[in-house]
């Protein structure tokens, strides 16, 4: 078994090779490479396939109890400053490898169908491969510096991919927003890492935690500073995992192609924040204040996301807010100390959310036949009754909805139930928020399912279409008559196959983490603690599970009566509580708040600085620049091109230096 560990570095390197080969091809022979469309895809997919196989082998070996494996080499040395790089395979890393590679592989297969008509097909595959490589590298990173490097790399891939359709202004804006917001978090993370190095002298995950605790214990470091450092580090996950208050970029990021939303903004990259919290768990868990902050941030985000998701009309935006809410669950679990529950939810969520996103992609793909290639194809108001046209998609989407809502025995039930159980132990208030959110989740997910797949098809209603188009600001009404008034169709097999495959883990994966036989926790448990063999009590389990299933059923019933049987009119309810409705629809006014608070103020500040700048600083800078340039121009003419003048200068300088040396 040692052999696979020695080749574990191949897992991130293989996709990188694929990206490089295709990228080089694109740079040097663009036409030829673009002509070989599917050949490129096959190359990249097969390379990732090898990585997947290796990851499974590693996970199998870790399950059998192989010790964690780590291989390091010197990166840079200067005096006693040693920086190492390498990779580390432990159960957590092995599990994440499997999750990332499988989701990435399926998304890549799906992409072939989804992007078949796009001129950027090959470029998209190159980016996908590059992203997979960076994400796998992040998972294998053994220390904080390497994590930071890959953290930035995945961020960069994310910007590239959000702005993939750079000719759409919304996409360009979204990628800018993601960039700016993530910069805030990354800056905090970098400060935190440097601060930790400053105080503990180490970049290792476990060493920093232990040493920091010792320092605080010995009184060498104030507890507040330690908590501050921890919170700074936590800022990284806050931005990357779209936690309040840095969550605003994620819904906008849905402007990217749907496979990206599934891979990066649902399953892997956004989970990197949770992964980092898990890696730094020894650090956080030694600082109770930091744990509080983490738990409440998560809980609030979970609630916030769920309430906003209720009123979204864009299917992808709705899923995005749901992702945010689910990430909130995971962060809350981490903060409550439920290490393995949080990671378990990460894994199950990765599968069912990827499936939901890919399903929405199939829906959009089908709708484009009706409304054309524009944002209107994502609007749920124009959908309805799609189950008849695309049965496979509807079936898998339903599984996803059941899973995320937490219906036993699907995957989401077990992981969410474990989180709720653990948070109840930590703080009943946290549990209450999580419990309520579970109900809202069930409600909005079923709302989404019903409006999309059930009822009658509304896409051919031209009046509604005009209204939606007007709302979305689409003016190109006449240019899609080629598509218009067709029927939505089922997606090609390359798209439905990944959906069907993903349905399997979404259904069954929860069974490895049931409270009565928790294989998951045996593998992944809090670092430093032996597997907490908590004795299982049926009565406790039944109360917890019963209460959460109860509220979920309540949510579902509400959704059924509002959107399926139409006994309750959603519009009427909205009209009764206009404030709450608008609060949710306008996303709690966060964009507006940030706009007036940060964007405008910083603009005003910038303008004032600019004024100052234009008058004083700019003048100075320009002056220096001008002086430099003029000096350059003047000195230039010393080169008058006459060799003898040059010789004169040489001899003159020799004489000058001799005299100068004689004097001094």
């Amino acid at each position, binding site marked *: 078994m040692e052999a696979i560990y020695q080749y574990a570095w191949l897992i991130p390197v293989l996709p990188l090779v694929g990206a490089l080969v295709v990228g080089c091809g694109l740079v040097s022979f663009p036409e030829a490479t673009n002509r070989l469309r599917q050949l490129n895809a096959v190359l990249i997919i097969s390379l990732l396939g090898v990585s997947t196989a290796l990851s499974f082998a590693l996970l199998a070996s870790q399950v059998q109890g192989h010790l964690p494996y780590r291989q390091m080499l010197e990166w840079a040395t200067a005096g006693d400053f040693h920086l190492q790089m390498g990779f580390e395979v432990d159960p957590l890393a092995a599990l994440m490898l499997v999750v990332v590679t499988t989701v990435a592989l399926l998304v890549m297969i799906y992409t072939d169908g989804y992007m078949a008509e796009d001129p950027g097909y090959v470029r998209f595959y190159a980016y996908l491969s590059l992203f997979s490589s960076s994400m796998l590298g992040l998972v294998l990173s053994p220390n904080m510096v390497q994590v930071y490097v890959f953290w930035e790399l995945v961020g960069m891939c994310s910007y590239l991919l959000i702005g993939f359709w750079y000719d759409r202004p919304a996409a360009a804006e979204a990628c800018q927003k993601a960039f700016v917001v993530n910069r805030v978090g990354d800056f905090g993370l970098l400060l935190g890492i440097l601060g930790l190095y400053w105080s503990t002298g180490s970049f290792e995950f476990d060493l920093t935690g232990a040493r920091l605790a010792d320092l605080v214990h010995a009184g060498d470091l104030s507890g507040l500073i330690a908590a501050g450092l921890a919170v700074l580090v936590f800022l990284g996950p806050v931005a990357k995992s779209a936690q309040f208050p840095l969550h605003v970029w994620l819904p906008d990021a849905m402007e990217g192609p749907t496979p990206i939303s599934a891979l990066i903004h649902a399953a892997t990259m956004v989970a990197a924040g949770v992964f980092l919290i898990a890696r730094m768990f020894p650090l956080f868990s030694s600082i109770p204040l930091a744990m509080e902050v983490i738990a409440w941030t998560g809980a609030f985000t979970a609630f916030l996301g769920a309430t906003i998701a209720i009123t979204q009309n864009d299917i992808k935006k709705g899923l995005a807010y749901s992702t945010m809410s689910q990430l909130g669950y995971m962060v809350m679990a981490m903060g409550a100390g439920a290490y393995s529950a949080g990671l378990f939810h990460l894994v199950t969520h990765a599968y069912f959310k990827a499936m939901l996103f890919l399903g929405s992609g199939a829906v959009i793909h089908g709708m484009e036949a009706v409304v054309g290639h524009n944002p209107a194809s994502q609007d749920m108001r124009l959908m309805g009754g799609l189950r008849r046209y695309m049965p496979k998609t509807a079936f898998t989407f339903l599984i996803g909805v059941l899973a995320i809502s937490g219906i036993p025995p699907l995957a989401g039930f077990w992981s969410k139930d474990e989180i709720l159980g653990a948070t109840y132990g930590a703080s009943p208030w946290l549990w209450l928020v999580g419990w309520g959110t579970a109900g809202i989740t069930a409600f909005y997910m079923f709302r989404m399912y019903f409006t999309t797949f059930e009822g009658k098809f509304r896409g051919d209603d031209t009046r509604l279409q005009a209204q939606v188009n007007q709302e979305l600001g689409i003016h190109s009404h006449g240019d899609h008559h080629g598509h218009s008034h067709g029927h939505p169709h089922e997606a090609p097999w390359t798209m439905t196959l990944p959906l069907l495959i993903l349905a399997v883990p979404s259904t069954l994966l929860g069974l490895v983490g049931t409270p009565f036989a928790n294989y998951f926790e045996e593998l992944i448990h809090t670092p430093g603690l032996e597997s907490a063999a908590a004795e299982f009590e049926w009565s406790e389990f039944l109360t917890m599970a019963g209460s959460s299933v109860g509220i979920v059923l309540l949510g579902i019933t509400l959704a059924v009566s509002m959107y399926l049987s139409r006994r309750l009119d959603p519009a009427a309810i909205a009209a009764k509580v206009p404030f709450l409705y608008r609060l949710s629809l306008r996303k709690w006014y966060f964009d507006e708040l940030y706009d007036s608070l940060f964007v405008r103020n910083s603009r005003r500040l910038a303008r004032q600085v600019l004024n100052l700048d234009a008058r004083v600083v700019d003048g100075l800078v320009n002056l220096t620049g001008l002086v430099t340039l003029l000096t350059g121009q003047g000195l230039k003419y010393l080169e008058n*091109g*006459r060799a*003898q003048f040059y010789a004169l200068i040489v001899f003159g300088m020799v004489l000058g230096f001799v005299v100068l040396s004689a004097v001094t």
Partner: protein
Amino acid sequence: MHLQFFLLLAAALFCIGVYGLINSRSAVRVLMCIELMLNAVNLNLMAFSNFLDPQEIRGQVFTVFVITIAAAEAAVGLAIVLSIYRNRDTVDMERFNLLKW
């Protein structure tokens, strides 16, 4: 005879070489002035060799090498002057200023 006399002579010769190098208009004369400078060095070396190192006469050996290399340098220099003359029909240093600034 003193060593200083030889050194002064060499220094004077060197300075004459420098003066000629800077002031001549003909490229060939510039080359000759370089020879003058090298010969000043040779004189220096010979003087030192005779006064300070009469056993091993390293300076004289050095001089032989310098003379050899000076010959090679002069040959290359004349070849370059020749090819520039073919292209430009002149060896006037004042007119070689295509490359400047």
